[in-house]
């Protein structure tokens, strides 16, 4: 009996081993429904700098864009870029976006994260020494976050093994560099990357798709050699400081369109035509080698200025949900973002009742209130408005009513707050009230608790909440709201990720005030690491940001201001300014030719506020 059992056991083991050895060799056919087994990426890796050594080491030449399938916007952005921009405090520690980070020199380290119980692969981590880029590639099948989630240098990455490659797809990447001479990669870029390992030789291939700045995907490959030991060189610390004293905060180093003084430098140095090194999709195909011999200076120079014709419109995806529901995103501590009803709504909850910043259009007010009640069963105590426009105040009346608290009526506190017990108290700058009365908006939604000074403060649910007036940005009635402990700033329409800034000159807005307001936001932010993280910035419309998005937006407004100012100085009329396309490098990100706020309206607002500055 015992011998029979042993015989069975032996045969069974033999069959198992035979199966593994034999049938394991071929693996399942592609698409068999079984996940492809992975390979081990773990270890220390060092990039072989045998391609593009100058770019990756000392740095690329000015205006060297050859081989990149860029569009006009990217080229003009790059030509406008003055490297002195990195002297600005908020740019000093800018990190690299994921694909450019891998392309950089330095060391990298990869390791696996596995579930301790099932041993399933949860994530692969990739750490780049340069800018301390720490990346997580999720391998557990989780979905990518919604479009309104924050962007980071490394983006949100998910991976699968396909064939002999680890295939990674990344979204939610910050605006950064295709090349660090000013050639941009937008915040709309997505990547597909392939890691293929042949022994100690790792080949990394990135495919970047960017609807804003590329006409077709750009493909690049980078080689890594596996290192047997820890090179012990992992840090790339950065802290910003004063570099240029006395520079006005609204000054952003840039070259006016068509006036980059170094655009010919590379051509003269290497004897190559400008048409080639200024890039474009044709420059990456073999046929362009023949064109290199016949290209003229005139053809190259024509690409240094905006082309005539209608400006392109935004190719960015709309980050806001439009499905008739309110979407809730936890921000930090007890603060949440509510999206879906026009302007962004921020809610702080706690024992003292909800504190709400802005109320959306009001079309989904009932759902907004229901969402808030899921977060807290306490009544809404306060509503703060960042402005008076209806996409931020439309829900005021309904949310105010939702703050009714009969237990408070007639109490001592009723003397302190005008709305106590009746509904939530609506706070805003006095000019919000003035405008809403003038527009004959429903009285129940008009702020009753207003302020005239630059600052209104209130301690609520354990956090110091401050409102700061911006006297001439979108209108004359804007405020930013800061939760000091949660470290969250709500900007209203001073800052959005969806359009050129709305500047209502007729109602007190101005481009100068807009730039000042953006700088006021930046004066209150602190990044966590390499210019990202830290203070959360909630735009009036769009996705969750930090200071990096604000500083890029500030740069844009200041640069467009400079261009329009220069044109005015040369005697240009409004029509001539519009024809000159001073927003050409930003049109594919923020532009519109129809709708409530077009590119032409923005240029006109800049022009008018410069011609007749606010007093």
């Amino acid at each position, binding site marked *: 009996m015992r011998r029979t059992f042993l015989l069975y056991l*032996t045969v069974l083991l033999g069959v198992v081993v035979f199966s593994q050895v034999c*049938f*394991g060799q071929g*693996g399942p056919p592609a698409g068999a429904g079984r996940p492809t087994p992975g390979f081990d990426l773990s270890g220390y890796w060092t990039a072989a700098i045998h391609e593009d050594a100058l770019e990756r080491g000392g740095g690329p030449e000015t205006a060297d864009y050859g081989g990149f399938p860029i569009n006009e916007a990217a080229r003009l952005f790059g030509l406008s870029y003055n490297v002195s921009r990195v002297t600005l405090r908020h740019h000093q520690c800018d990190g690299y976006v994921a694909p450019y980070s891998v392309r950089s020199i330095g060391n990298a380290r990869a390791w696996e994260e596995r579930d301790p119980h099932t041993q399933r692969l949860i994530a692969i981590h990739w750490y780049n020494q340069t800018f301390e880029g720490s990346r997580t590639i999720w391998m557990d099948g989780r979905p990518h976050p919604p479009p309104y989630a924050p962007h980071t240098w490394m983006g949100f990455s998910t991976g699968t093994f396909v064939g002999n490659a680890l295939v990674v797809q990344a979204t939610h990447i910050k605006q950064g560099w295709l090349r660090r001479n000013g050639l941009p990669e937008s915040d709309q870029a997505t990547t597909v990357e392939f890691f293929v390992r042949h022994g100690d030789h790792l080949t990394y*291939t990135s495919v970047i798709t960017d609807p804003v700045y590329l006409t077709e995907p750009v493909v690049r490959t980078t080689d890594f050699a596996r290192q047997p030991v820890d090179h012990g060189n992992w840090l790339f610390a950065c802290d910003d400081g004063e570099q240029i004293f006395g520079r006005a905060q609204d000054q952003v180093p840039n070259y006016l369109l068509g006036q980059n003084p170094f655009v010919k430098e590379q051509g003269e140095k290497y004897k190559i035509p400008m048409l080639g090194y200024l890039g474009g999709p044709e420059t990456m195909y073999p046929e362009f080698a023949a064109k290199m011999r016949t290209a003229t200076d005139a053809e190259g120079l024509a690409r240094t200025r905006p082309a005539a014709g209608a400006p392109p419109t935004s190719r960015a995806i709309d980050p806001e949900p439009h499905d008739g529901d309110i979407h809730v995103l936890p921000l930090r501590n007890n603060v949440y973002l509510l999206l879906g009803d026009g302007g962004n709504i921020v809610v702080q909850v706690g024992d003292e009742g909800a504190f709400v910043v802005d109320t959306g259009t009001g079309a989904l007010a009932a759902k907004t209130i229901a969402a808030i009640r899921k977060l807290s069963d306490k009544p809404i105590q306060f509503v703060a408005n960042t402005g008076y426009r209806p996409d931020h105040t439309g829900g005021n009346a309904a949310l105010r009513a939702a703050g009714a608290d009969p237990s408070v009526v007639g109490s001592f506190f009723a003397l302190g707050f005008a709305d106590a017990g009746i509904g939530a108290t609506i706070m805003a700058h006095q000019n919000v009230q003035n405008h809403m009365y003038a527009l004959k908006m429903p009285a129940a939604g008009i702020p009753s608790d207003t302020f005239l000074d630059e600052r209104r403060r209130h301690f609520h649910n354990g956090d110091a909440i401050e409102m700061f007036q911006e006297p001439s940005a979108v209108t004359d009635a804007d405020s930013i709201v800061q939760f000091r402990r949660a470290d969250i700033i709500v900007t209203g329409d001073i800052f959005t990720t969806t359009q050129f800034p709305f500047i209502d000159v007729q109602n007190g807005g101005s481009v100068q005030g807009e730039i000042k307001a953006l700088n006021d936001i930046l004066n209150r932010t602190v990044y966590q690491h390499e210019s990202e993280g830290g203070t959360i910035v909630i735009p009036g419309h769009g996705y969750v940001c930090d200071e990096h998005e604000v500083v890029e937006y500030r740069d844009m407004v200041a640069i467009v201001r400079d261009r329009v100012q220069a044109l005015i100085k040369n005697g240009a009329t409004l029509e001539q300014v519009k024809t000159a396309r001073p927003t050409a490098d930003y049109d594919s990100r923020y532009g519109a030719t129809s709708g409530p706020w077009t590119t032409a309206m923005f240029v006109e607002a800049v022009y008018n506020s410069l011609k007749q500055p606010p007093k």
Partner: protein
Amino acid sequence: MRRNVIDSTLEDAYYRLLEAEEELDQVRTTVYAAPTLTIAILISTATGICAQGRGGGPPQPPRVAAPVDLTGYWVSLVTEDWRYRMMTPPKGDFGSVPLNMDGQKLAQSWDPAKDEAAGNQCKAYGAAGLLRIPGRLHVTWQDDSTLKVEADAGTQTRLFYFGPPQGQGGDWQGISTASWDRSRSPLGFQFFGAPPSAGGSMASVTTKLKPGYLGKNGLPYSANTVVTEYWDRLDVPNGDSLLVVSTEVVDPTYLAQPFWTSTHFKKQNDATGWNPTPCSAR
């Protein structure tokens, strides 16, 4: 009496225990030794059988066994080393190539007219440098065990032999042997779990080269050069397919260290743009 009974019982139990231990030892020996021996035999047998192909039949020809389809027309995407590839750089511009002192010295003496006069205008089109020249590749199977890679730049042909190589080498493309490279254990087997990846790439080793250039401006490689390449096909979710060739050039004569590049191409649906041109030394 009672004590004797107890002693007898203890003694009996002691001997039964000894017997049991002996039996256990036999069991242990059988349990450990028999399967181990059997497994070893099976591994040996299985490895032999499976090396010849599934089912123990005759080995599949490399063309049939290919884990990846590299055939078709492919066009260079010149997004790296653009200045060095789209035009001939000036003499002495070594870029990223790790030439040693001898290599640098030779590169400084580059004279394209001299190459032309000697009939050596194809020096930059040899196996170690061919793929870096912008152009198109046409990849086909010459027969079941020979992959043919034609380049329109310089009208060159490289043959990759999965079987015994033909020819003696000594020309621009040398002799290239090839194999399918799949992830596998150095021991050839694993215990349990998922089988190795279904994917793979073509690995090739090229030797017996006629001395040539790594770059058109006369960056030299010698007849001692060994070129190791991995040919990967990457399918992008947008429908594009990429051919990525990871190359290691080892030349103890003119390179200070192995020279690593990766060159990428995009798949074309047809022969559009295929334009065989003669070599150019300039």
